[in-house]
């Protein structure tokens, strides 16, 4: 059952075309990994799906409903939640407050403060700490927890490993594994291809605003994705 449909989506930053006329479908329960070089358009795409960026053209449908013109805070009410690149916590507020304020304005559902702390036990001792004082890994956990508090049906994770030590990334992915088994639909932007292949059911590789490669994670291998990533199977010059 499709939960998200993107049709002919075009996004701009001023004069720059960041996403050009792409289309794809996400089915409920899928875990889709978005890979691609910097500037490929991944973050712009995620922000546009979440409603933080207005597309120049195209259509976004969530659960069969056209949400292209819907404001971001209303999409949260429908069940779309974005964990933005760079985490973007409310740094002046405590962890608990960050979580509570999301819980107050999101959808009602299973995710409560206690359940989030169960999924991210490293946050338990840090509940009253100022979010700006946490380590990178703890901030990432808080950011994901904050999105979960809105009880999303579609969770968008934008580069959760950015700036984190490998150990912290492991911890984040451990916490996410429970979530991923639980059936929430997830789109995750991930630079580390091995991790992306390990957790996802489908992969889309973006290049210069378009889709260079798409398919089930089981059917694609690292070589194919690498070639698509660098765009080396297009362009005029061939490598020796």
């Amino acid at each position, binding site marked *: 059952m499709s939960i998200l449909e993107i049709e002919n989506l075009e996004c701009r930053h001023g004069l720059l075309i960041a996403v050009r006329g792409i289309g794809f479908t996400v089915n409920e329960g899928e875990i889709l990994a978005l890979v691609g070089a910097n500037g490929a358009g991944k973050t712009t795409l995620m922000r546009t799906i*979440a*409603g*933080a960026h207005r597309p120049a053209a195209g259509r976004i449908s969530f659960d069969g409903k056209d949400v292209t013109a819907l*404001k*971001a*805070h209303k999409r*949260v*009410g429908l069940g779309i*939640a*974005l964990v*933005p690149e760079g985490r*973007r916590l*409310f*740094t*002046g*507020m405590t962890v608990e*407050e*960050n979580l*509570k*304020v*999301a819980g*107050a*304005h*999101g*959808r009602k559902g299973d995710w409560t403060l206690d359940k989030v702390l169960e999924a991210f036990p490293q946050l338990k001792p840090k509940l009253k700490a100022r979010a700006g004082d946490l380590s990178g890994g703890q901030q990432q956990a808080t950011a994901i927890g*904050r*999105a979960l*508090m*809105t009880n999303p049906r579609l969770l968008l994770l934008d580069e959760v490993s950015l700036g984190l030590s490998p150990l912290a990334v492991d911890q984040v992915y451990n916490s996410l594994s429970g979530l991923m088994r639980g059936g929430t639909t997830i789109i995750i932007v991930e630079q580390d291809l091995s991790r992306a292949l390990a957790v996802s059911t489908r992969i889309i590789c973006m290049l210069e605003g378009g889709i260079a490669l798409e398919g089930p994670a089981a059917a694609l291998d690292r070589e194919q994705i690498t070639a698509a990533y660098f765009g080396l199977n297009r362009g005029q010059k061939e490598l020796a």
Partner: protein
Amino acid sequence: MNFVNQLLQGVLLGGFYALLACGLSFLFGVMRIINLAHGSLAVLAAFLLMEFCNDTNFSPFGGLLLVLPVMALVGWVLQFAVLDRSLKAGPLIPILSTFGVAIILDNSMFEHYGANSQSLGPFIGDLAYGSWNLTSSLYIGQLDALIFATAVVVLGALQFTLARTPLGRTIRATADDPSVVDLIGVNSRMVYAAVAAIAIMLTGLAGAFLGMRASFDPYAGGPMLIFAFETVVIGGLGSLWGTLLGGIVLGVSQNIGAAISPHGFLIAGHVVFLAVLIARTFSHRLTWRPRFSRKVATA
């Protein structure tokens, strides 16, 4: 002894300044907007109350039940009509547009009410001049005491709301990062409108007390804006209790200046303001620490 009394009066005056400034401080703390129409809005409330009292012969305190909601509505409309659009144009544009609003307000009031000074004093009876004598040379005016108490209560209530209630959390989150707060389901424009409504309503309350303790005319907004601004700057931008402290420092400075020389009232206040501004700018230990706003609000 006279000197101590001047100090005491200065502290009480500080309560009025704090009440006058808290709307300005709150609006700036959350939205990073300096509302130059602040003083004019306070005077507007005073004029509205005056009309009410003239028409109904009721006390201005009763009139507040009508005027405060009206001021809240004015704030709501101001946010959507002026502030929201100004912010989209850039962080300094609200200064220009609120300056324009101030000019429009001042001149409209002048056209409507004329140049005469007005006062709400006649409508509050004994409160206007009653006082308690602590000693033979120390006294506390009843109205002044009421104003000071109101300032403390208002600031305390604001602080409590921000720190402990869900609404306060929402406001602080919106102040912290208005573009991200949309991602957790908060309609940031509505939050801003609520903040503007509260801020202008509080400004209206201050305007009521302005009318009661002194006289006012259509152009009284300018000096009021300056006192409010100086209070906020002395106390620290974005800090609510700092506003009380700033008001007291300003009030005490002015009164000490008045004791020294007949022209010293205003000058002493300005000198202290300037000194604090310079000290804050050049001293790292007294840095600006906006308490509940971190990122500039951009569309």
